[in-house]
């Protein structure tokens, strides 16, 4: 499976490329739309700021590329900001709209910057930086641990697209699955064996999906 990792000037893509390769993909890191179109699946990683991310995509016409790609039901994997941009808006930058492919919004995690160490209630430091458990059930436990690094998270009333929940002071959306769209708030590329396993699973389902 050839996977295009979208390069849109938002930080280091090497670890994502390397993790996809470890999961068995042939990876091209590219911003070229023809190159992307030749690929079987598209991965949009992301770190940084929502507004700049959307602006960068729009400046390169890649917002339309992502919309068309997902509209054509081709396999998509969004990581962190690559997930958040799919929603309608973000508190991080209210001057710019998200892609609005999924309904819901991105809000800043509540929590105290300095938790009381004696009680350490929920350990709710923001940003949420560290390993945390992701469960398919909203109040369940027993899921896999993945590495998170974010201050904003997705909240949606469209529960049927949510495939994973996480809790950090409050419950937020950790993973999305709708048709060919897979998106995760955590970083599979920094989540060791569980991250690679998730990427393998995505590649397997992507290879069964629509191909050109």
């Amino acid at each position, binding site marked *: 499976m050839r996977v295009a990792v979208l390069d849109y000037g938002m930080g280091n893509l*090497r*670890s994502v490329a390397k993790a996809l390769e470890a999961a068995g993909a042939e990876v091209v890191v590219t911003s070229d739309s023809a190159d992307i179109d030749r690929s079987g699946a598209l991965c949009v990683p992301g770190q940084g700021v929502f507004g700049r991310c959307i602006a960068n995509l729009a400046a390169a016409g890649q917002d339309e590329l992502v919309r068309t790609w997902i509209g054509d039901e081709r396999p998509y994997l969004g990581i962190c900001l690559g997930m958040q941009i799919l929603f309608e808006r973000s508190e991080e930058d209210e001057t710019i709209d998200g892609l609005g492919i999924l309904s819901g919004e991105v809000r800043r995690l509540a929590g105290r910057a300095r938790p009381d160490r004696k009680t350490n209630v929920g350990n709710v430091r923001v940003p949420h930086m560290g*390993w*945390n458990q992701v469960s398919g059930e909203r109040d369940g436990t027993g899921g896999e641990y993945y590495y998170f690094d974010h201050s904003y998270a997705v909240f949606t009333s469209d529960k049927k697209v949510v495939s994973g929940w996480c809790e950090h002071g409050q419950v937020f959306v950790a993973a999305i699955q709708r048709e060919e769209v897979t998106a995760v708030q955590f970083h599979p590329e*920094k989540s*060791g064996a569980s*991250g690679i396993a998730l990427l393998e699973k995505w590649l397997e389902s992507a290879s069964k999906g629509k191909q050109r």
Partner: protein
Amino acid sequence: MSFTVYPAVDIAQGKCVRLLQGRFGTETVYSDDPVEVALGFAKAGARWLHIVDLDGARTGVRTNREIVLEVVAKASCPVQAGGGLRGIDDVVEILAAGANRAVLGTVALEDPAELRRACGRFGERIAVSLDARGAGSAGPQNEMGAAGSAGPQNEMGAGSAGPPNEMPNELTGHGWTVGSGMPLLEAVRVFEEAGASMFIYTDVSRDGTMSGPNLEGVRRLAEHTTRPVIASGGVATLDELRAVARLNGDGVRGVIVGRALYESKFTVMEAIRAADEASVDKQ
């Protein structure tokens, strides 16, 4: 998950080494390929890595910069990196390359304003390294004793490390070669005020010795600060590692392990399991 084991990859002259008590010239070379070692730890299940450019720490010139950047970009787990990060530009570079946390030491001691700028901009992504040596009581009223005069060439004689579990008092910089004259707990106050969100505490006299961690030292530091503390230095057995992990409830959130892993005293996964078990009820 609330207590993290950090396998350490220290790099000198392009090689993966361990120093003894922070002294250059005492290094044991464990591999010529630090990248392979680091990625190996990640593959073995490490949830975080701790990587240090020792030459950078000592001289401020990041001789092993390329190697460190390669590790942080490629590692399949989060990485905290330090050694020779002397200003904002270095921090920007290492975080952009993929590091998840930057560790500052010398610059914190010598340029608190720069530490403040770094913390203001990067917050939780900055940890401050407290590399302490020299015996002394830890109380705030403590006067710097004779051991506090540790100069640049100070050698740690066996006797000068102080009785076990005393808290080493003086902070060092420049890769542990230069005593700062600054008492540890006073420095902690200054760094907290500058915005440091996490401390890495190394009892230099124990580092690389596998003589057991300084539990009392790290516990007293954790008690003194509201910030999470990572302990470093001296862990040689799983029991010692468990003892550190049990300080979880006191604010000790992790332990850096070096030589014990290189000498196969235990594996990465054994260390993680031991830490998880020992810290499980202490959240």
